[in-house]
């Protein structure tokens, strides 16, 4: 079997299954019996602005990596609607647990987009405060965050913070590949038997690095939920309105004590897995082109144009603003200071330790010995 033959030839499992859609790729609104949104013109324009901005900032990060200014970057290209839709559906009291690709959700949480860039530039040990910002750290051991989210949701239950509109809910982001991990399935079980207020938000972007969906499953992913005893729903992940509506409903169910939901946001990773990956090794160009026609941003623009909610001036100003933000971000990234070497001893233990203190002293003395030699 040659490499070309190993590329995907058959459609992925469940490609023919319907999903919740409120906005077609042509920018036409469609209705759904269970889900709707009631955004006004300002809010629709706001969503458009979010989508354009997160794509632009993401492209800037990719460019920075290409120029050697970041170690690595996992682009969200193609997944903007799933992330902005679900991110905007969160209420302020809700907690999110991301993977390493949720830059769009991070943006919606109001976190300074420089935070992950500091990490990937390798100058920053930490980043945003997960508790204060209600947004966990980027998790790169695949699947672990689904259990963090489930435990957090069990804590919410324990504290009695469910059952009202002010109730709290949790959202766990993960990919299609992650669904094969034991811990993801175990988190489904815990969430189910404890009726935990957690929404499992799977962005099915069709690939886990090189492995297509059929390496992970024979059934559509959202259908897995029924075996665990909670609802599963597939949404058009390139439709920001549907992604919003479905996530908002699932979060509200959770906060009202109705337990978990699995959402499968059906989308596509338009770029490489990360900047270290070359997708031409394992997928064909025609597939990428097919998804290009379902672009999540173009359809919102068409809607705004069709309904006369925005003019050329608006679109031009959104583009210009996004460009300005990207330039500012670049300048700030390049100006980030290097960390002090002794920072590596910080935060190993919450209250320090004798061993770490001794290491720090030895380390400082060793470096001071070079400083004294001086001159060379």
């Amino acid at each position, binding site marked *: *079997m*040659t*490499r070309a033959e*190993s*590329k995907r030839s058959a459609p992925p499992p469940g490609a023919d299954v319907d999903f919740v859609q409120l906005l077609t790729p042509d920018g036409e609104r469609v209705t759904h019996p269970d889900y709707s949104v009631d955004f006004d013109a300002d809010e629709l324009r706001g969503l458009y602005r979010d989508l354009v901005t997160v794509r632009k900032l993401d492209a800037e990060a990719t460019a920075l990596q290409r120029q050697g200014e970041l*170690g690595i970057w996992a682009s969200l290209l193609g997944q903007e609607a799933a992330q902005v839709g679900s991110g905007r559906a969160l209420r302020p009291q809700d907690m999110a647990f991301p993977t390493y690709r949720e830059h769009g959700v991070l943006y919606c949480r109001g976190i300074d987009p420089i935070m992950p860039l500091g*990490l990937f530039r*390798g*100058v*920053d*040990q930490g980043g945003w405060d997960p508790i204060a910002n209600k947004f966990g750290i980027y998790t*790169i*051991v*695949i*699947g672990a965050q689904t259990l963090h989210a489930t435990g957090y949701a069990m804590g919410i239950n324990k504290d009695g913070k469910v059952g009202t509109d002010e109730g709290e809910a949790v959202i766990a982001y993960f990919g299609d*590949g*992650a669904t*094969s*991990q*034991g811990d993801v399935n175990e988190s489904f079980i815990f969430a189910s038997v404890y009726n935990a207020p957690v929404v499992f938000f799977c962005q099915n972007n069709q690939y*886990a*690095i*090189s*492995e297509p969906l059929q*390496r*992970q499953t024979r059934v559509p992913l959202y259908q897995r939920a029924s075996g665990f005893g909670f609802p599963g729903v597939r949404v058009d992940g390139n439709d920001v309105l549907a992604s919003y509506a479905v996530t908002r409903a699932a979060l509200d169910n959770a906060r009202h004590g109705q337990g978990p939901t699995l959402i499968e946001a059906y989308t596509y990773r338009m770029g490489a897995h990360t900047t*270290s*990956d070359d997708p031409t*090794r*394992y997928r064909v160009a025609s597939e990428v082109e097919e998804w290009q026609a379902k672009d999540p941003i173009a359809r919102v623009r068409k809607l705004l144009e069709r309904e006369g909610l925005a003019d050329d001036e608006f679109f031009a100003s959104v583009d210009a603003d996004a460009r300005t933000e990207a330039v500012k971000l670049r300048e700030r990234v390049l100006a980030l200071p*290097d*960390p002090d*070497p002794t*920072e*590596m*001893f910080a935060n*190993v233990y919450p209250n320090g330790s004798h*061993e*770490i203190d001794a*290491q720090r002293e030895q*380390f400082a003395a*060793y470096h001071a*010995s070079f400083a004294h030699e001086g001159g060379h």
Partner: protein
Amino acid sequence: MADMTYREAVAEGIAREMRLDPTVVCLGEDIGAAEGVFKTTVGLFKEFGPTRVWDTPISEQAIVGAAMGAAMTGLRPVAEIMFSDFLACCWDYLANEIPKVRYMTGGQVTVPLVVRTANGGGLGFGAQHSQAVENWAFTVPGLKIAAPSTPADVIGLLAAAIRSDDPVVVFEHKGLFASRGPAPPAGHVVPLGQASIARQGRDVTLVALASTVPIALQAAETLAADGIEAEVIDLRCLVPLDMRTVLESLARTSRLVVVEENPYQGGWGATVVSIVADEGFELLDAPIRRVAGECVPLPFADSLEAQVIPTAARVIDVVGQLAAY
């Protein structure tokens, strides 16, 4: 002899065994069409196809657990765990199942499998993709452990590991993938548990493994300019551990420095020096020193990471202290 990279040696080493023995199969994430995220399985899928090269779903637990089951049918599975940090995701199988099955069946069932994994730091991959974790496996009786430092040793040790009836964990060092060395001839096998003397010297013995071998060699070059001749021992394996070669070297040099990438606390060097203390105390003229990683998680910041992992400068500094004895 032609040169090859360490990375090429991994694919070549596996391919050689697969050609010889039809029971050898490979399994892991992205090892097929993508040819490995570190390009360490290049050509395997093309040559051996999907019946012998299995791109698996993303579950380390399933990869290693299923490798055990497959081994019980007489196959010789070579399982890849993409980053050695993720051995923690399949630790039940590596700590409780695989190393115990021969013992708990009174010797009736063996599982001749290999778990290969990209180990170690220095590439700025952060706390969960950079650890040197040979010492995790070192705590588990029943596992053998190889950690090659050169392309020729990669091929020779992979051959021995795959042919071994015992489960073997092979730690391939990420920082060495791009390094080059002579390609070994056909049929090259390095027996498990045979250290090599990477450099001869009479003044001090530097014991190293995988990534710390080039560090020790680099230190030895600088020390030689100051008239100190360091002998560098490449352990190649932790289980079996070739202490005879270490003790024979100490009989010549009387000074020992162990250079290890894992954190000082619980590092494999602690076992090496305790054996020297037990069996070779009279050989020593100076205290033993260990140059190891700091006892902190690996920082993502590469400027910090470089300070956590042992460097040639630190080795030289420590050897200099021993010269006073």
